């Protein structure tokens, strides 16, 4: 392991995120005693065939930064210059994150369906695992049938949970017997790794049971008691195992690990760390939501007062897994978001072509709209699957998102939107926030970098987040309440320094954008009608608050929650078109 640099002296930070399609490098430096983003570079990832070596893509992304800034990062042997020199070459700190790697097949083994298996499932879905088989005490299949199922599943990893600390042991060991037998029957060199996160007292027995067959990693119990679930510690151990498995299939991790002092963090974990940090920093009454729509997975991170709920859906992404969306969502649920008439068979062909060529980008308007329609449905589906165990929405309605501030969004399709309104409307349609929130876009994919950097330089995340490297799309007010379209919702008054106040009435069904550019601050007064809650804690309650501007402006989304689209396809398309115009995506 390399020594970490002296934090007091650390100034220049280089962060690299290796994705399945792109590799990004971001250079940060101290300007006026604050960390600031200096430059970013992006290359196609070389984690995939034919190279199967991440280091080439990393060097190409770094080379772009060298070209932009003139700062030498690599020496003659293509090694990282670290620490930085007095001549301004190199960096002081290097951190790396990665989401690249083949899908890892996992078999989940646990005791009780609603308890340890549920916790195990949550643990598995918080990272890049594809649970292909589950085995539990309530399983009615014969033991030899379960052995055949494990063999057919060809797992890379067997995740074993079950038993509270000091609790059940016999039943856990009995279940493990058959699993160990199956693991031992895999061909030489193909034995699965084992991660045990159950009753702590059984760790040694589990290691002994798999002794000559599989490498066993022990993690803290995900269910130390019936009442308590603790995924955080187990998730860290699981991340190490996943990183190990991936680096056994793709080259270049060793070099990047060497540069980063021995550790390459999983992108989703780093993303989640930032969201958790924000939830500890911002007001604790509300949660913080982060969504990252990638080519190979969708990550949903929500944190409530420091309690992180992280979900990684490897079956939902705008690349290779895209056809899986058709298994969880109907064709109509995708086409309902389109502003123009595109035939179902064209949409289906598009989905399969995009899965073959995930790196491609739309050249034509219809294809862009289709890509954003898919993005909406992927986010909505992922959010629905992630929300188990979250606090309920307003008035206990499970279908509504609980109050979140801010909502941070990343991912290729959102960050390269031709106008900020595209990203904003996609987030409003898919996530349907309630009350008052801020939509923040991460156009350079910095969030994983900041999550990884926070472990080394804690202040970097906060300082960069508050700099201009993130794009605030705007403050959003999403009133709750029902009634006929056109019914008055609230009187709105926006006061801006040096400008005339804007005042008017918002009606149900409207999407209103008031001009308040990024960097400007205004005073917003909302006087809701009876039966509407604008986010001040009660129906009909009025209030005034300071609002910050954004690339779109101040958005009042009075289209209703949950958002109900017209059944008539023509009318629906007209509305989608109108909303795109209202929010400034189309002119």
């Amino acid at each position, binding site marked *: 392991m390399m020594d970490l640099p002296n934090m007091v002296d650390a100034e220049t930070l280089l962060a690299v995120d290796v994705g399945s399609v792109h590799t990004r490098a971001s250079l940060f430096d101290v300007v006026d005693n604050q960390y600031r983003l200096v430059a970013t570079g992006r290359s196609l990832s070389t984690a995939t065939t034919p190279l199967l070596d991440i280091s080439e893509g990393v060097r190409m992304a770094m080379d772009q930064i060298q*070209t932009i800034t003139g700062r030498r990062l690599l020496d003659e042997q293509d090694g990282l210059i670290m620490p930085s020199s007095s001549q301004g070459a190199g960096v002081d700190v290097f951190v790396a994150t990665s989401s690249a790697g*083949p899908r890892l097949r996992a078999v989940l083994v646990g005791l009780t369906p609603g308890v340890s298996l549920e916790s195990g499932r949550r643990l598995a879905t918080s990272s890049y695992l594809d649970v292909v088989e589950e085995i539990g005490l309530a399983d009615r299949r014969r033991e030899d049938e379960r052995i*055949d199922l494990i063999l057919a599943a060809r797992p890379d990893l067997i995740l074993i949970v079950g038993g509270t600390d000091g609790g059940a042991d016999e039943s856990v060991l009995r279940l493990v017997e058959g699993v160990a037998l199956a693991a031992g029957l895999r061909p030489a060199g193909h034995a699965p790794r084992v991660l045990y996160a159950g009753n702590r007292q059984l760790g040694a027995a589990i290691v002994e049971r798999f002794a000559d067959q599989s490498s066993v990693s022990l993690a803290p119990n995900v269910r130390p008691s019936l009442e308590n679930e603790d995924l955080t510690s187990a998730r860290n151990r699981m991340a190490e195992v996943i990183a190990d498995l991936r680096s056994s299939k793709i080259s270049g991790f060793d070099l990047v690990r060497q540069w980063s002092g021995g550790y390459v963090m999983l992108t989703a974990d780093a993303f989640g760390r930032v969201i958790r940090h924000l939830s500890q920093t911002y007001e604790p009454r509300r949660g913080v939501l982060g969504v990252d729509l990638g080519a190979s997975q969708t990550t949903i991170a929500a944190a409530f007062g420091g309690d992180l709920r992280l979900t990684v859906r490897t079956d939902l992404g705008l690349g290779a897994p895209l056809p899986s969306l058709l298994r969880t969502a109907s064709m109509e649920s995708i086409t309902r978001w389109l502003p123009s008439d595109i035939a179902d068979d064209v949409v289906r*062909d598009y989905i399969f072509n995009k899965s073959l*060529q995930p790196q491609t*980008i739309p*050249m034509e308007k219809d294809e862009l709209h289709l890509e954003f329609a898919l993005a909406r449905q992927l986010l909505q589906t992922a959010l629905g699957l992630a929300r188990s165990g979250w606090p309920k929405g307003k008035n206990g309605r499970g279908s509504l998102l609980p109050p979140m501030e801010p909502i941070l969004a990343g991912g290729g399709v959102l960050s390269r939107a031709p106008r900020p309104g595209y990203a904003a409307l996609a987030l409003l349609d898919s996530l349907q926030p309630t009350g008052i929130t801020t939509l923040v876009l991460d156009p350079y994919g910095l969030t994983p970098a900041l999550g990884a950097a926070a472990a080394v330089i804690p202040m970097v995340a906060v300082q960069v987040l508050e700099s201009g490297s993130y794009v605030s799309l705007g403050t959003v007010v999403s009133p709750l309440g029902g009634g006929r379209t056109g019914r008055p919702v609230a009187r709105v008054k926006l006061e801006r320094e040096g400008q005339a106040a804007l005042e008017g009435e918002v009606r149900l069904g409207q999407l209103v954008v008031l001009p308040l550019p990024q960097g400007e601050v205004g005073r917003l007064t909302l006087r809701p009608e009876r039966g509407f809650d604008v986010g001040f804690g009660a129906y009909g309650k009025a209030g005034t608050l300071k609002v910050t501007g954004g690339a779109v402006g101040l958005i009042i989304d009075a289209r209703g929650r949950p958002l109900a689209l017209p059944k008539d396809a023509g009318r629906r398309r007209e509305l989608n078109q109108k909303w795109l115009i209202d929010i400034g995506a189309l002119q």
Partner: protein
Amino acid sequence: MKSAYLPPVLHVTPMTIVRRDRTLPVPGTVTARLNERVQAVDVIAEAETAPRHVFLDLARGLGVPAKEAPSHLVRQKGDRVEAGDTIAGPVGMARRTVRAPADGRVVAIEGHRVLFEVRGEPIGLRAGMPALVVGSDGTQTVTLEVTAALVQGVWGNGKQDFGVIRTLGSGPGARMQTDMLDINLRGAVLIGGTCDQAAPLHQATELMVRGIVLGSITSDLIPAAQRLNYPLMITEGFGVLPMNSAAYGLLTSNVGRDVAIDARPPADRYSYQRPEIIIPQPPSRQADFPEEIIPLKEGARVRILRAPFHGAVGVVRDLPNKAADFPSGLLARSANVEIEGLGNRMIPLANLEVIQ
């Protein structure tokens, strides 16, 4: 290689050295010898399909206490047995025994239980193309090499075969229809344009075709294509997309020759080998291994991966530093590509692959 843009590479080449691994789904025995010349139909490795396991309870079968049961075992872990062979016993006056329920193997002995592996069906791995055996791991994988023309595609239905190449319809965009299929095409590998209905694909089954290569099929035909008993490969994607001119030209110039079609499906980008047609050629000193990494530069021959020129082939004329904007509103680094029959067009780099 730094600063270069490395696009995906598609091989459409009249002469190259093709080296391919053929791998059994489970470990078995490699039967081909190093430096042996094999034919497409030759079996080069054998194994058994995924076996089934059953627990045999010795205590219950022998009618003895669990602790005593292991002492009556007459087989050891790893022993192969035939159906009816004794595994434990005989015990007592009734001479009770536990016998093998089928041909198989004792794979584990756990106290009074024996885990028995029921032998699976034998499977043979065929070479799939006439080639030279240049490597093997002895149990699962054989490496073959042949000098050949190579045409790669984007999707396949997972089947492989070998046959004589014939054209179907007239031109790379010809829509496949049932009336195109006649007895003269029996047993051939057919080269066509597009297909948007299942009927001709099914009718080809009756003609016992050895394979079909098309520019595209509509995506609703994927389930039907996966059920076909012959290989189906597409070169462009899903929808109604003519076969690219480079692939069509090379394939049709080889009509009457034997070809191997490996319509492997796209797995993931980490183990992805494209579906492909291999047309064996006489060995040549000019042949070399195809390049897998080709930086994009002026003069490169490229294929366009997305509408509105999906499948078109062209040559890169310029690589401007400045990003270009597109009707979608997106700004992207792009190449000025001279497209056959269409003139020069700006195409995002992300939408290009190099043809070699």
